[in-house]
């Protein structure tokens, strides 16, 4: 099993979620984050003052999936989150040793 963590632009969340549903993913955990990256932030003028904003709002998506689903999952996310602009985000994949469903205490792939 793998944990796929994706950092995406906030306004793509709806699309990504739909795409994940499209490839059969039923469970997803989502949280707020902020990112620094190549997308350097922007200069703003406000009330006569100029300053740089370089921490930008992002969404973190976490999906635990069976090894066999990982490619589908990453492709789905890339497909739905890509706008082609700098700052579209990152996905990283980590090996999961075990997973538990709290409701039942089941373990392993069937708990996903």
């Amino acid at each position, binding site marked *: 099993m793998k944990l796929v963590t994706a950092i995406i632009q906030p306004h793509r969340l709806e699309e990504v979620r739909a795409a994940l549903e499209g490839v059969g993913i039923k469970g997803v955990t989502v949280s707020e984050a902020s990112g620094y990256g190549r997308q350097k932030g922007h200069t*703003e*003028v*406000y*009330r*006569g*003052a100029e*300053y740089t*904003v370089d921490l930008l709002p992002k969404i973190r998506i976490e999906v635990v999936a069976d090894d066999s689903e990982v490619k589908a999952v990453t492709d789905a996310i890339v497909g739905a989150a890509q706008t082609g602009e700098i700052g579209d985000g990152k996905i990283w994949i980590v090996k999961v040793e075990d997973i538990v469903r709290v409701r039942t205490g089941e373990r392993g792939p069937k708990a996903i």
Partner: protein
Amino acid sequence: MPFTLDSGNTAWMITSTALVLLMTPALAFFYGGMVRTKSVLNMMMMSFVSLGTVAVIWVVYAYGLAFGPGDAVGSPRAFFGLNGVADSNSLAASFGVPFLVMVAFEAVFAIITVALISGSIADRMKFGTWVVFTVVWISTVYALVAHNVWGSGTLITSIAPSQPIDFAGGTVVHINAGAAALALAILLGRRKGFGKEPMRPHNLPFVMLGAALLWFGWFGFNAGSEFGADATAGRAFLNTTIAPAFAMLSWILVEKIRDGKPTSLGAASGIVAGLVAITPAAASVDTWGALAIGFIAGIVCALAIGLKYKFGYDDSLDVVGVHLVGGIVGTLLIGFFANLDEGTTWAYNIGNPGGPLNGLLYGGGWTQLESQATAAGFAIVVSFVATLVIGLVLKYTMGLRVTESVEVSGIDLAEHGETAYEEAKSL
């Protein structure tokens, strides 16, 4: 003169006083919304505590200092404690408004004036020092300026060629507070991150709430300064509606042209700039004069708030840019637009020798402008210098500024043991 109660005028003056009292909490929101989340409460407390200290000293001795007899300054013993004073001593005795009503009316003017200063020193002044400052400043600077503009003091009238017009506090309140704010901001130094970090307002709806309640209260401030409910109060009221309205438009027009977008902070600031500028002029200009003053004040103040970046003083919430500059704009424009023929029944000695005159554009020549400049200059110099002295004394006794680590982690927690908001966290 025997005193005859006029219930209508009294009703209006009581109402006005309540309206002006509300302006100080309104200011707390106007300022409090503009700071960052970590210093909201301290910002608001600087206004609230002024309500506490000034109200108390006012009824004990400060009313007499400002409005008691005396050439340069009044006397703390005149009206000490206020008991047993006949209503014929009322500032509005001729309008049939009792003495204590007018004492309260003048009290709330003093309160808001010192509270205004706090905007230039956001995020960084020791709270205890601020409390002491409010007492000292009102007892000296405010009492002196009020005594010579509105009371029996002669320091200004003896040098001005005609009676300067300050209907509701252009010099006493706004120039006075603005110049003091500049002095304190310089003494305190800049906030960490000034000019580099964003420091955007943490809650713009609060800023708009503040601006709205300020406007609402300002009707008591300006129309109340007639001391009665009559046509002149109506003129002052109407001018207090249209000048800030036009100033809001001209301020956001500047923003639209310069930055591309009209902001809500600009609209709120424009309203206040217009209110400030019309304050001295409310009962002595006609519709065109009020519109002109509002329009010009909005533009000038929208540009003036940029000065702090040029000169490097941290006038954090633009007290200098809005109150000092706006107060000067209004005070001087009276020299151009004063129209004392437009049915004003306003009580100053119009038409008497030494009385106020029409402005340049209304056939009065340059004289009134000169008088206006004299009064403005007097207030600027007195307030700036005296506040510097007070500030220096406090700096080397109590200390003015919190430590850097307090400033970074937030003055609310350090000085008040609180944070403004507890998040709805499930955590």
